[in-house]
């Protein structure tokens, strides 16, 4: 089921609620089970996300002031960009870290994040 949900999320940016019955039927499980999986994992959601900035909020980035960076980025972005605090991008020697799309940015600053968002 996870590969299917990843595939759907990649295509639609989220899992459209209306697809739950189809998924359940295709995998021969109950709708409740499909919903249970979608709600358990952070990567899946029913709400469409236009653009997302992930800021790492884990200990290694905390040690480099990610708390302040998250506040700054939240203040900076416009309404259609979603800022999500994630737990660890695995880039812990050069934090604070930010992920935009497939791109991970080390030693992130508000200025560099803003630049990257403008370039997109």
């Amino acid at each position, binding site marked *: *089921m*996870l*590969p299917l*949900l*990843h595939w759907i999320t990649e295509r639609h940016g989220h899992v459209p609620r209306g697809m739950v019955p189809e998924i359940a039927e295709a*995998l021969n499980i109950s709708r409740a*089970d499909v919903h*249970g*999986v979608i709600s*358990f*994992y*952070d*990567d*899946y959601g029913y709400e469409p996300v236009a653009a997302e900035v992930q800021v790492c909020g*884990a*200990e*290694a*980035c*905390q*040690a*480099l002031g990610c708390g302040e960076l998250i506040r700054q980025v939240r203040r900076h972005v416009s309404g259609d960009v979603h800022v999500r605090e*994630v*737990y*660890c*991008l*695995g*880039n*812990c*020697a*050069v*934090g604070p*870290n930010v*992920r935009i799309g*497939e791109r*991970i*940015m*080390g*030693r992130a600053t508000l200025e560099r994040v803003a630049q990257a968002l403008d370039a997109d």
Partner: protein
Amino acid sequence: MGACVYVPDETTANSLGAARVAQALADAIASQGVDAKVVRNGSRGAFHLEPLVEIEAAGERLGFGPVSPEQAAALVDGGRLADRSHPLCLGPVDDIPFLSGQTRLTFARTGLARALDFSAYRRLGGLQAAERALSLAPQDVIGELETSGLRGRGGAAFPAFIKWQTVHDAPGAEKYVVCNADEGDSGTFADRLLMECDPYQLLEAMVIAGVTVGAGHGVVYLRSEYPKAFEVLGEAIEQALKHGLLGSNVLGSGRAFTIELRLGAGSYVCGEETAMLESIEGKRGMVRAKPPLPALSGLFGKPTLVHNVLTLAAVTTILAQGGSAYAAHGVGRSLGTMPFQLGGNVACGGLVELPFGTPLSDLLNQFGSGSHSGRPLHAVQVGGPLGAYLSAEKWGLSLDYESFSAAGAMIGHGGIVAFDDSVDMAAQAQFAMRFCAEESCGKCTPCRIGSRRGEELISRVRNGEGRSGDLLLLEELMETMETGSLCALGGLTPMPVRSILESFPDALDLSAGGADG
């Protein structure tokens, strides 16, 4: 023959601009007609030097770094490549102290060549382990593991050979090898580095595991936060099939072994082995009660060998060099090497593979070179979010399983996160509880609810609203979590909290309301 200019193609290097550095170098080489080519190698893991450019010419491989995209073109100047006189030159790469001071066994090959270059893998010693394993009886392979003293690198440090023996002896034609590449701990990236820069080593190790325990199929469960590793590993599996390391006739042995790559979906607890198995089966990542052990009833109820990436990778060194050569490193019952990962507020961070028994202070000073901010270091968390915070008086501790556990700490997956003196230790204690509450699979009340209560309590005290009896309440809460949790998420969350109460007593004053209570 022309020169070779290496620029790593790896997450950390790319996060600091390596792709643009490579492009600038390629452009400069082309426009100036220099006889050289750019190769995207793996990273050596000396992350403070990334992007680390290596120029191999005239039998010498010189390092330059860190090279910003803006500085890159100047490495090709006046129609020739930079040499030792260049201000960014670090000398021969192998002599860089951060690298030459390590004992690299598992990470001996990372960064030397392009990660997916199969012939380079063979040339640099790859496949020797699998070839030897295929020539031995399974029991002799397990014997090598026993001699090596290898213990699980995923966190629990359980002797590897016992698991192999159990899966080997388990009845049944269908068995699995599952590689745990969920690497959830903050401050850890060794699994990622290995998968991105030396992926065939992991595949070779899984093949060895498969033919030894009698499994025909392997699964790598990779966290979704690692897009680069996903790409490299996926391609590596295809190449390995093409070159006969995987498939129906592994290295001409007549044995079959295939590997499937599966992505996680952003859940920390799915790194716990039974939750991971549930997740691979397409379910919520709920922890299973043990017994049954996964070794007897694991994936789809079949006997399953579950190992961390680093545990598996160590098997190739052990088979190629012999179990006793591996066991010659380390101390006591902590044998071999451990790929430690230095991160957080550290000047020189990266992968540091050392024999067990090295003092933590060596790692912090000799390799880390102090803090990134320039302020004094204050606390070091070892072993991920469930590991203890150590204050300066404990930095002399020997990095081995027994010394750490005697000190109320743990090595875990080898992550070491440094904090300078601006850290608010009370906030770290609160975070430990919040993390547990957010990542709990929800099966046990002490973990799910206890952590919530713990977070509220610490938050209250931090806001100056401590009540009498808070200390006792927190103590009871932690005891309940420790004794009433099914897995280590609930069971070990008190470890960082206790370590803060003990080693940083001024940070969180729980006795505030206590006197009049």
